[in-house]
């Protein structure tokens, strides 16, 4: 957990409800009337990946470095865009299909900044923050997810 530039990083090991999180975060961190635009992204665990049924996932991270990297990424975004606040919540540990893995939210006076920063945060997180996913398939075998895809390319 860290705070700088009006931003918050949370790495949590229990399931969370992104909409309840956003609601309570806005109440405690934002000033009504100042915000014109809120862009959010939620990444959720699917029960399939690369053609296989996935029954669970273990999300490993590098305690200390993960927090520092997320803080760095959030600070960079707040330097590049005019944001009132930014929130990153990321699960670690055992995750089941349907459970949210990551929440990113950006608040700004203007929608371009909110959209651009939110997307940038997600891509930066996926390429630079030390998290690793290990999937448990339906036959109880395990496999590491080997790499993240580029989220700016078309995915029809």
């Amino acid at each position, binding site marked *: 957990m860290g705070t700088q530039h009006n931003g918050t990083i949370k790495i949590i090991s229990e399931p969370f409800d992104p909409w309840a999180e956003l609601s309570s975060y806005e109440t405690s961190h934002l000033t009504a009337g100042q915000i014109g635009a809120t862009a959010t992204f939620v*990444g959720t665990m699917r029960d399939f990946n690369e053609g296989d049924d996935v029954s669970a996932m273990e*999300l*490993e*991270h*590098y305690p*200390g*470095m993960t927090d*520092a*990297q997320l803080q760095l990424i959030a600070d960079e975004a707040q330097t590049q865009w005019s944001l009132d606040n930014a929130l990153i919540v*990321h699960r670690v540990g055992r995750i089941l299909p349907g459970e949210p*893995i*990551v929440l990113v939210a950006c608040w700004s006076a203007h929608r371009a900044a909110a959209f651009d920063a939110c997307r940038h945060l*997600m891509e930066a*997180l*996926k*390429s*630079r*923050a*030390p*998290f*690793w*996913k*290990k999937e448990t398939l339906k036959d109880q075998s395990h496999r*590491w*997810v*080997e*790499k*993240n895809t580029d989220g700016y390319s078309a995915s029809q």
Partner: protein
Amino acid sequence: MSIKVKCFASMREYLDLSERDIAGDGINSVADVWQQIAGDKPMPDNTLCAVNQSQADAAYAVTDGDEVAFFPPVTGG
């Protein structure tokens, strides 16, 4: 020279090593740290290294007390 080494995810399984303190006089770079813990095992092409929790390459010079980590490409989010 004393170095704390950490390995994560598939790298931890590849080396069967989660965390170890190593010491010795011949350790000058991240590559030297790798050789100490991995012996003959080659470093996989896509391996990422960090020194004191910041990314670094294999040639990066380490100093006494550093924390050096090895891990595969990240897959969070």
